[in-house]
């Protein structure tokens, strides 16, 4: 059963898998998480604001993104981003953007909807007395949020945000559908070139498994530590 398995193909392709593939995956995960948390927090503030229309628009965006599959969102943005670029820069034709930028925009805007719901729960978990106290001290809305509410909400939600980041790390493998060379894409290219599907896909599964497992254990430990401090 394992007789014609060639484990050597993995050793030979390690530099390509990790320096090209995994670097893309990690960069995409970190940048999309950062962007997603920033935009997600703004969306959450919009959803909780009193300004007429704003919370409906933000809510509609979040619900729309959350009700369609990531694969479809990737396709949407893959074709839409060139037109958005054209609209922004006023160019005559749709702008060709690289695979990385296209994937980054997609994942940032997609994850923003999920981070929005996490931050909204975080903001709502802060007792109302905190806002009233901040108002009584004469703080502006901006000060109330940046000095009082958001730091606490963020801190409470750190474990959930990190868990979502691990999910995002796994989800980035879906850029496969637009033929981008992330870690899985690199494994898949070698697999098809050398006819070594079994070795490469098993190896990819093992790598994803250990990274995600280690990260989620670390998040669980962090969660316990934070819980004791509070």
């Amino acid at each position, binding site marked *: *059963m*394992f007789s014609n398995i060639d484990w050597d193909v993995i050793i030979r392709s390690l530099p390509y898998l990790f320096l090209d593939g995994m670097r893309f995956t990690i960069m995409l995960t970190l940048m999309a998480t950062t962007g997603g948390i920033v935009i997600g927090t703004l969306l959450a503030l919009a959803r909780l604001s009193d300004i007429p229309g704003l919370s409906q628009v933000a809510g509609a965006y979040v619900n*729309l993104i959350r*009700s*369609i*599959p*990531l*694969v*479809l969102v990737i*396709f*949407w943005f893959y*074709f*839409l981003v060139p*037109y958005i670029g*054209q*609209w922004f820069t006023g160019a005559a*034709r*749709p702008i060709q953007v690289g695979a990385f930028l296209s994937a980054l925009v997609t994942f940032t805007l997609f994850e923003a909807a999920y981070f929005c719901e996490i931050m909204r*729960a975080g903001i709502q978990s802060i007792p109302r007395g905190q806002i009233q106290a901040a108002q009584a001290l004469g703080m502006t809305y901006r000060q109330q949020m940046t000095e009082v509410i958001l730091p606490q909400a963020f801190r409470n939600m750190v*474990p*959930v945000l990190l*868990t979502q980041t691990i999910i995002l790390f*796994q*989800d980035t*493998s*879906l850029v*496969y*559908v637009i033929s981008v060379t992330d870690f*899985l894409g690199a494994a*898949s290219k070698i697999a098809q070139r050398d006819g070594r*599907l*079994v070795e490469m*896909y*098993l190896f*990819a*599964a093992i790598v*994803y*498994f250990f990274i*995600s*497992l280690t990260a*989620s254990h670390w998040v669980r430990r962090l969660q316990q530590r934070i819980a004791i401090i509070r």
Partner: protein
Amino acid sequence: MNYHWNWGIFFQLSPDGTHAYWQLLLFGAAWTLATALLAWAIALALGAVIGVIRTSPVPWLVRLGNAYVELFRNIPLLVQMFLWYFVLPELMPEAIGDWLKQLNNASFYNAVICLGLYTSARVAEQVKAGILSLRSGQRMAGLAMGLTLPQTYRYVLLPMAFRIILPPLSSEFLNIIKNSSVALTIGLVELTAAARSMQEFSFQVFEAFTGATIIYIIINIIVVNGMRWLERRVAVPGFISMGQPAAAH
């Protein structure tokens, strides 16, 4: 935007020669629903069993359940699809492997099994959380009444636990519908793949994706309302806090 819109495209004949593009999308939606529903049956059954054994007093069963959940939660769904579709037939004895490869609708069966097992780990997590959220007195009372442990689960713990975890279970059900789109990578022509092929044949990118998006939203609305109805239907009078999810994470 110098994009050429053409909404009439939905009523034009698709390259298969007999159906219009809108019918192509509906066939895709049917495959999406068939995949999701069958996988959901697997996920519920297996998830309930794994969730229960993770709360059982038998240490090796608990460890087995934990290992199962970690295995399926820490590998991306797309990689799991590839493992089932490309790797499993190669690791089987040759006769079985060849039979698997020549199976009609192989990508459909693979997608159902893969999605079912992947989601069962998530269901197991919810079932465990639901059982643990019950007061320990419930289990003790059941045992003190002379019920065996399986009977205590069947008649005392699980009926309450399942009611408590209905809201997170419905979002898992929505997830399984969305996740079925990953099966397009192994050649299943579900809704997203149907929209993609409509785009490739007709070059009307945004119409095709808008069509698929609207169908997903409609499915979503139907499921959300169905689940709300179910929640009201099975609610136990006197338990007002039932709507609260058992655990945030």
